[in-house]
């Protein structure tokens, strides 16, 4: 368990969830075949194989589609992938290279499987929290098109490319307006903060870097303050200036 925690890192809860779902589905299949029970290790191994089978099949189908210059898979890619996956065992008609894919015996076997095997739906409806996840997964399919529909000016961009970000992120005027808006509202607060920091500094605390950072973002121009300095105090005044005691409306 400790190892799996290290391996999977932050993605652990969702992966546990999908593992649990695949285990339930595999358990249902095993039960329908006639098993009454299962070793935990065998059960986990078989459900792992089920997920790997799906992944391998999908990878094969998508690489078939990509090699044909498409991004979306169609029925031929899937049938080809299923044939590839069952070519380890071999199947009827595998030697006939001129046979149409739609005529494949694999598909006939699948049709008879669907016809003769009882339909066993998944034991429980998958909870609603998964709905968001599902939309997130299929977002790569739906979102680019939506954005293309939204702004027609980008309709020349292929649908498989990611959507353009929000206009406020790359248009200068919008960003500056937002920044001004943010800073002007908080003048009093800034003043208070800075005064407090300067006060603290007078007491001998070492927040100098912080206070200097604060001073850089002084929101308004303050009235000038003039001092007449005697020679004897020069040293002390310089130090004070550096610390920011005399700057601003103190």
């Amino acid at each position, binding site marked *: 368990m400790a190892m799996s925690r290290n391996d999977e890192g932050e993605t652990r809860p969702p992966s546990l969830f*999908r593992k649990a*779902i*695949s285990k339930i*589905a*595999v358990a*249902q*299949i*095993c039960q*329908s*075949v*006639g*098993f*009454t*029970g*299962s*070793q*935990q*290790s*065998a059960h986990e191994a*078989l459900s792992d*194989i*089920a997920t790997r*089978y*799906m*992944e391998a*099949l*999908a*990878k094969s*189908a*998508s690489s078939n589609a990509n090699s044909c210059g498409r*991004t*979306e*898979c*169609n*029925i031929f890619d*899937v049938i080809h992938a*299923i044939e590839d*996956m069952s070519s*380890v*065992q071999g199947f009827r008609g595998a030697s006939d290279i001129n046979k*149409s894919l*739609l*005529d494949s015996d694999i*598909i006939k076997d*699948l*049709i008879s499987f*669907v016809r003769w095997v009882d*339909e*066993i*739906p*998944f034991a429980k409806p*998958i909870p609603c929290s*998964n709905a968001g*996840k*599902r939309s997130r*997964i*299929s977002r*790569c*399919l739906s979102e680019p098109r939506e954005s293309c529909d939204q702004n027609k000016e980008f309709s020349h961009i292929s649908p*498989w490319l990611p959507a353009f970000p929000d206009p406020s992120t790359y248009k200068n005027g919008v960003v500056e307006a937002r920044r001004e808006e943010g800073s002007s509202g908080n003048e009093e607060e800034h003043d208070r903060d800075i005064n407090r920091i300067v006060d603290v500094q007078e007491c001998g605390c070492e927040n100098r870097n912080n206070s200097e950072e604060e001073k850089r973002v002084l929101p308004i121009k303050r009235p000038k303050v003039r001092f007449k300095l005697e020679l004897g105090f020069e040293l002390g005044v310089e130090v004070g200036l550096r610390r920011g005691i005399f700057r601003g409306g103190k």
Partner: protein
Amino acid sequence: MNQNTPSGEGKHDDDSALSDFLASLMDYTPTIPDQLVEHYVAKSGFQCPDVRLIRLVAVATQKFISEVATDALQQCKARQASAVKDKRDKQQKDKRLILTMEDLSKALSEYGVNVKHQEYFADSPSTGMDAASREE
């Protein structure tokens, strides 16, 4: 869907059978839920808006798993039949059909999957007992 078929004259029946099958998949609920298939399939870069192809993948996976499970069941029954000859007293206990790692790995080896597993887990209280009675 089938417009770019490399079809000859006699293929129309197959095409219609296939499209009927795909249409029937809309009403069929595979044991492996759509969401799970969609997740794993999207993980591998499979893009398809058509739910029928997702169902087709689900059905293919279900068929594969049930074939493996059937083979494992036959292995289990064969092993029990041979074991019963030796010890008739254990017959009652061994009659339960339990998917074990031994049977599964034998069944999977026919499908090109080599399963390697630990020979035993020392932390299980039933360690060293018969494989069939090691149900968890």
